């Protein structure tokens, strides 16, 4: 870096409060900051709110974009769906409480951030994250901080402004690009210091996702992903697989098949987009959910599927419901059956309940 150019930083922006504060602390020290948000397919942001009809009138914002606007910085939203698979499928540091590979994920994201060139700069001088030691049980601990710095390749070009005072000096501090005295020494799970800092900056409207920034921290979602791997017989996924895990009721009566059943009109509409790729069931006799069938069901399985569809339709108390089953090969068949009674559905058929 020459003396005449402003130092530049790339800040990981999740859309939550901590990354917002971290970027702001550095921005206020006169550094040129741009944000980056990685789209893995598991993000809590976006998606499901667009799908569910009840949310139609309160279009949720994309928090990362919103945060960047509040800060007055540019945001790169980067598609890492393909590359991220390796992080989820083979995390060298293992998973957290659920299928969240937080430590590997952080290493991956810091590394990817370093590879970026900015809109106003060829490369960034350092990376900023909103990590706080002790905040997350697995990925944000004293021991993991240097691991992320080393394995991402960032080394001392990784600055965590919210807890920097508890960590060794980094390059931006030594080089005088930022003043260590103006950084923070937050520690642990207590959110009060962050709230106070937010108030000082006048931030009143911000998102604080419980659990984490992606669906992999969600127990129910992780159960569905484990089920997918188990019954496909391989640990892998495509984007559509992981999007569908966020939608509808997932019912697996046996190893041969699983049903993905819409719970309301928005999900019905969304699942309709997948009719080409699945055998699907439409109920003819009553109002009811569109249902995708995954796997290779037998004839008696399809009768059971019809009974289950009946159970979640307006015909749940009728003697019989009739459905059309559209097979993937283009053949359709009509089936009638009595809706299944609630006590006949074992709890373990509901994946991730």
């Amino acid at each position, binding site marked *: 870096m020459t003396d005449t150019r402003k130092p530049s930083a790339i800040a990981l922006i999740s859309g939550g409060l901590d990354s917002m504060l971290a970027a702001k602390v550095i921005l206020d020290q006169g550094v040129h900051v741009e944000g980056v948000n990685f789209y893995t397919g598991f993000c809590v942001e*976006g*998606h499901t709110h667009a799908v569910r009809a009840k949310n*139609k009138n309160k279009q949720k*914002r994309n928090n990362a974009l919103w945060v960047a606007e509040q800060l007055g*910085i*540019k945001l*790169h939203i*980067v598609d890492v769906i393909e590359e991220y698979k390796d992080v989820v499928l083979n995390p060298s540091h293992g998973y957290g409480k659920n299928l969240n590979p937080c430590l590997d994920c952080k290493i991956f994201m810091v590394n990817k951030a370093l590879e970026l060139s900015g*809109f106003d700069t060829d490369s960034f001088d350092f990376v900023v994250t909103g990590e706080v030691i002790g905040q997350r049980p697995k990925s944000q601990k004293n021991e993991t901080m240097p691991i992320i710095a080393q394995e991402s390749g960032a080394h001392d070009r990784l600055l965590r402004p919210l807890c920097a005072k508890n960590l060794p000096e980094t390059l931006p501090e030594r080089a005088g690009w930022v003043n260590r005295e103006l950084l923070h020494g937050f520690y642990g799970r207590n959110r009060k210091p962050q709230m106070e800092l937010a108030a000082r900056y006048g931030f009143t409207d911000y998102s604080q996702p419980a659990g984490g920034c992606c669906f992999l921290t969600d127990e129910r979602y992780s159960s569905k992903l484990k089920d997918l791997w188990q019954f496909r017989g391989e640990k892998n996924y495509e984007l559509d697989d992981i999007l569908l895990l966020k939608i509808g009721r997932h019912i697996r009566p046996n190893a041969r098949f699983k049903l993905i059943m819409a719970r309301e009109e928005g999900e019905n509409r969304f699942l309709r*987009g997948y009719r080409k790729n699945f055998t699907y069931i439409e109920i003819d006799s009553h109002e009811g959910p569109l249902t995708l069938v995954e796997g290779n069901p037998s004839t008696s399985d399809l009768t059971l599927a019809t009974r289950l569809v009946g159970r979640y339709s307006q015909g749940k108390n009728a003697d019989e419901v009739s459905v059309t089953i559209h097979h993937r090969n283009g053949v359709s068949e009509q089936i009638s059956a009595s809706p299944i009674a609630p006590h006949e559905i074992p709890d373990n058929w509901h994946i991730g309940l």
Partner: protein
Amino acid sequence: MEEIVDAIGLLCPLPLIRAQEFAKSTKPGTTFIVHATDPGVFRDFPAWCRMHGHTLVDIVEHKAEQIIEVTIELGN
């Protein structure tokens, strides 16, 4: 004739990501169109354009075709 970025069926933020990828390899001043179906674009694209100095020329929903058409002129 403006180039069209096809984001039909993609959920947000993918339409934005596709537009951003197109913008990176396209000259400033170019006008292009994004075809999308996720109504989240009504929120995301104005913010993205403001942030990056692009002009949001138009954003309309064609109800009959169920397509949202976003027209953008790239800034510098």
